[in-house]
């Protein structure tokens, strides 16, 4: 294709062709300039990622020098004595995302199955669009709703019930121990679950639609029920894509800031109860960064950012690789 787009080689240029030669030269220069410009822009994308990495490493150096690998295992977060550890924030990040996935994934799968297999054709498009629009709602909306509406409701109605329900069950009574604050790790996890719902659903729905209709029709044709078709044809065929979509949602949940910051409670402790206030990496940075005084404090927060970036990078890279695999499969 490159060859075809080159301007034709100049035939012997006579004097009258001077303007033609000039035009061709202009074409050539333009082409080279434009190509270089676009190439540089493409490389800029790589530079941004490298820049993020370098600036986070550089900004967090004082913290690594002060604490070393102990930073990962220390529980204290004390601006006065300048002793910082990431453990509670990492714990909170992983736990809230785990709760979000525990609830969000099965429900998203259910909605996706509903949309592709059960829902009447006429409603399918509009519900699909509604879900995609909801996926675009800014996370701060989930946060403010969580703080003012969900947390009080959770505190007065659901938490006491949960505490009573599990009071005599050995392990669970530790996990669901009072007092009911309303805000805390569980609340943050639940709000994250609601937030990732439309996001994961729209990806899984797209992935489900890559299943060739012939496969499904064949299964229906030999008398499979709808559930059997979903379980034995649709899900096995799209398994890699589903996992990719789920991990993309996980990446979202891990790095989510605003939906969590409002309701997490910002406590740098690890409590056995999942209803206790806690913190996440992103919430800690959002809450404390502008008020952080001293190099070590700021550097510790940047170090948290670096940890978050590395975790999400791994999760997102794995997700993309998986989604690429199913795209290639669908392309064939």
């Amino acid at each position: 294709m490159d060859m075809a787009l080159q301007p034709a080689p100049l035939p012997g240029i006579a004097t009258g062709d001077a303007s033609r030669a000039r035009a061709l030269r202009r074409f050539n220069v333009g082409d080279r300039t434009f190509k270089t410009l676009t190439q540089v822009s493409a490389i800029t994308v790589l530079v941004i990622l490298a820049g993020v990495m370098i600036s986070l490493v550089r900004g967090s150096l004082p913290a690594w020098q002060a604490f070393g690998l102990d930073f990962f295992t220390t529980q204290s977060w004390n601006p006065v004595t300048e002793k910082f550890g990431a453990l509670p924030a990492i714990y909170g990040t992983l736990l809230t995302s785990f709760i979000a996935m525990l609830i969000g994934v099965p429900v998203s799968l259910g909605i996706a199955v509903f949309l592709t297999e059960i829902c009447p054709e006429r409603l399918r498009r509009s519900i699909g669009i509604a879900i995609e629009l909801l996926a675009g709602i800014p996370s701060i909306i989930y946060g403010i709703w969580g703080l003012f509406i969900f947390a009080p409701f959770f505190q007065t109605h659901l938490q006491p019930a949960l505490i009573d329900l599990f009071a005599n069950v050995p392990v669970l009574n530790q996990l669901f121990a009072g007092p009911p604050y309303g805000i805390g790790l569980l609340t943050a996890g639940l709000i994250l679950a609601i937030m990732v719902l439309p996001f994961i659903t729209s990806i899984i729905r797209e992935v489900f639609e890559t299943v060739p209709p012939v496969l499904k029709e064949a299964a229906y044709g030999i008398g499979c029920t709808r559930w059997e078709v979903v379980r034995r044809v649709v899900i096995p065929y799209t398994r890699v894509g589903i996992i990719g979509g789920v991990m993309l949602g996980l990446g979202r949940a891990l790095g989510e800031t605003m939906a969590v910051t409002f309701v997490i409670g910002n406590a740098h402790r690890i409590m056995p109860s999942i209803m206790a206030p806690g913190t996440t990496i992103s919430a800690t940075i959002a809450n404390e960064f502008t008020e952080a005084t001293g190099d070590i404090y700021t550097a510790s927060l940047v170090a948290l950012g670096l940890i978050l970036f590395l975790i999400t990078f791994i999760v997102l890279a794995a997700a993309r690789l998986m989604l690429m695999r199913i795209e290639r499969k669908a392309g064939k």
Partner: protein
Amino acid sequence: MSAPKNNARYASRRRGNFIATVLSVGAACFGLTWLLLILTVLVVKGVGGLSPSVFSEMTPPPGGEGGLLNPIMGSLIMTIMAVLIGTPLGIMAGTYMAEYGRYSKLTMIVRFINDILLSAPSIVIGLFVYELMVATMGHFSAWAGAVALAIIVIPVVVRTTEDMLLLVPNTLREASAALGLPQWLVIRHVAYRAARAGITTGVLLAVARITGETAPLLFTALNNQFFSWDLNAPMASLPVVIFQFALSPYEDWQQLAWTGALLVTAAVLALSILARMLASKRVPS
């Protein structure tokens, strides 16, 4: 379905199907209920505070009268700057990937990294721009905020530009090349024109995305009680003001936060719907 051989087995398969169907419909109802609930609360709480003064007055001190003029203007200015910085870069990068280096190794790497940037935690972008601009310049500024938002715009625009240019039929390119047009004019006059609606959609989606972004602005543009045109000074933005006011103990601030949240959501939904309408009449395939 007449007289299946093994009635018990048939019944259990039907039961399984029934349970799965109920669960799936239940999941749909459950999920949609929450999301509708959030939207309803948002409208009910937000509409109460809507008044002309919201658009004409500055953010008030606690207990005072005021509106959201400075955050609205701040958000508009920083969004426009971010789009002005991010869009050309994004479109150019997308152009390289779809036109010049369609099968090159660089394109594959950029595509992969771009997809990661697309969902990278926005608070980390904020930290990056803080280190890059705020720490070196010594003060918070609207420029830093705009750059942080631009970094979020770029991957969205790169992705849609590449996708849309790939949809442009190659016969169009070949026809114009056959007329003797060099590649850069083919791209500018033919490919861009054919993909215009799609690329515009991408830009609109990017704007929708940054309209509600809070985390990258928290420690780049910070906040400002007043409005100023000075891009070198801190600047208020709707999401940051919502964050600050919602967490405050003052009821009138909280009311303004709800109203601001309603405005942001309405803007985001309007942009997404507009983008969708544009996308539905894109390149003839």
